[in-house]
């Protein structure tokens, strides 16, 4: 060792560092498949869209359908309900984002931004409480609908209004509006 002319430590350090670097990259590359295998697989992702006929859903009624393993609420709102939802000022809301998957993140949570123009009576929501994932009550006529007349999550007490916006309780966000469109007159395609 002592007979080396050039600084031997630097060279060895470099080799050690390079070796360790390669090992780290290789290790991470090997680890990734074992992490990624847990993500939703191809068949789960393939189930990504459903079509629903809503002809039978009368004004004031609601149905629940399944989309990607989650319940989706489809509600045919009455005139009064739409007016009530439209009247709410943004300042009164707990979460001022529209949470509409079709619109940019920054869109404000007006009722108009949570429905399709011209079809304001149809409210389509992912029926999963944004707190810890329970299914809120409010779909059937006999359900408790909470202090704001929309949905009420009994798990930890979150209240949603007629536009599915969070108004009271521990849930942080408005109910998500899934990506959907009308195909023909009475069909909704979700996903």
């Amino acid at each position, binding site marked *: 060792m002592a007979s080396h002319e050039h600084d031997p430590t630097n060279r060895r350090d470099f080799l050690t560092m390079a070796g360790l670097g390669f090992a780290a990259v290789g290790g991470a590359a090997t680890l990734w498949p074992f992490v990624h295998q847990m993500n939703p*697989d191809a068949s789960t992702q393939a189930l990504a869209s459903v079509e629903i006929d809503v002809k039978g859903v009368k004004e004031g009624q609601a149905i629940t359908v399944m989309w990607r393993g989650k319940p989706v609420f489809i509600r045919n709102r009455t005139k009064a309900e739409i007016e009530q939802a439209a009247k709410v000022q943004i300042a009164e809301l707990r979460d001022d984002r529209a949470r509409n998957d079709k619109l940019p993140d920054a869109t404000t949570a007006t009722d108009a931004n949570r429905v399709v123009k011209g079809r304001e009576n149809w409210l389509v929501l992912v029926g999963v409480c944004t707190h810890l994932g329970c299914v809120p009550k409010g779909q059937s006529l006999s359900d408790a609908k909470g202090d704001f007349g929309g949905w009420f999550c009994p798990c930890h007490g979150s209240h949603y209004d007629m536009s599915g916006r969070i108004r009271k309780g521990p849930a942080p966000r408005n109910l998500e509006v899934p990506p959907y469109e009308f195909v023909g007159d009475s069909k909704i395609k979700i996903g």
Partner: protein
Amino acid sequence: MSGHESTYVAKSRFAKFMDDRLPIARMMHGQFVDFPTPRNLNYMWTFGGILMFCLVTQLVTGIVLAMHYVPSAKDAFDSVEAIRRDVNYGWLIRNIHAVGASMFFLAVYLHIFRGLYYGSYKAPREVLWILGVFIYLAMMATAFLGYTLVWGQMSFWGATVITNFFSAIPVVGTKVTEWLWGGYAVTGVTLNRFFALHYLLPFVITGLVVLHIWALHVAGQNNPTGLDVKSKMDTLPMTPYAVMKDIFALAVFVTLFVWFVFFVPDYLGHADNYNEANALVTPPHIVPEWYFLPFYAILRAVPSKLGGVLLMFAAVAILAFVSWLDTSRVRSTKYRPIYRWFFWLFTFTCLALGYLGSKPAEGWYVVWSQIFTAYYFLHFLVVMPVVGLIETPKKLPRSIAESVLGANYGGGAGAMAGATAAPEKR
């Protein structure tokens, strides 16, 4: 203890052969037969052995159950019912496993509170204590995963609520949760991986227990006085003295255990879990198993999602720091006139939180949950450091031996030592 040498003597030729090659008998003898245990241990020191029994029970019954259980969304619920009705003695084995989880937690809570009361977390047992906290965490994860496997309504919605804790993480929360689920909600895919992990974790616990006992046998056991072992007079060999006591306590514990198994196997469960999982309907009142209720109360005491989840995890994590939060000079609460009151207040707080966790999150229940949550944290962050500094401990006995044998034993030390040493010399 670290300095302790095994007195093992290899008798047969085979024993001698092994002793020169793999001296496992020597090690076991040194660690579990002639290992010096404080002579004043009370029944609160029997729960370590009882926990060991619980772990083995869960492993044995669990492996048998896995031979009959089907981890798919379609068949899981029915396969559990089939185990209870069709499999020979399936009802017995399943009841033992289900009740066993509760008994395991009962024992671990007594074990933890024993440690908190007698200051077993203080130097030199910090690592031992932290390993215990890891064991407790792994137990919670295992119990949660196992409860999901039944695939009843409570299983499903419990799994949904608990996995959703991770969705509170800013930015990547949803991605992490979907990664855990393997989908966009809890489904059969989730069930399948939970089964694999439920099978794995008990072996991780077993590994942690080995480390836990290793650390215990380096530091030596604490004892009701909290004093260090100073002389041979302070200890007795583990076998038969401590072991006999362990066996008696275990017998009492097992009596309670089998009473549950045979007479009220479903008492600790929830009726909703006898309905099969339904992704469209959440039961009106979701509650976890009893041993998670205090944490559930803390979660619901906070009117913010991230805040509630953080505080709940903090409630467990804070246990890992007590060795440094407690500033007292003496270990045992027995000699701490002020802290003693706070200790019982803390115990009451935990029980109260448990009760509140079982109630709906509304009205006064929420207010009381908030009050007790506040004390839960104040106890660790304020009471433990401050009381330790201002309190004057009561007079301690001079040694462990003195606490058992009275102040006068010292005169006849030689004679006494002879008397206690005699039995195991035979």
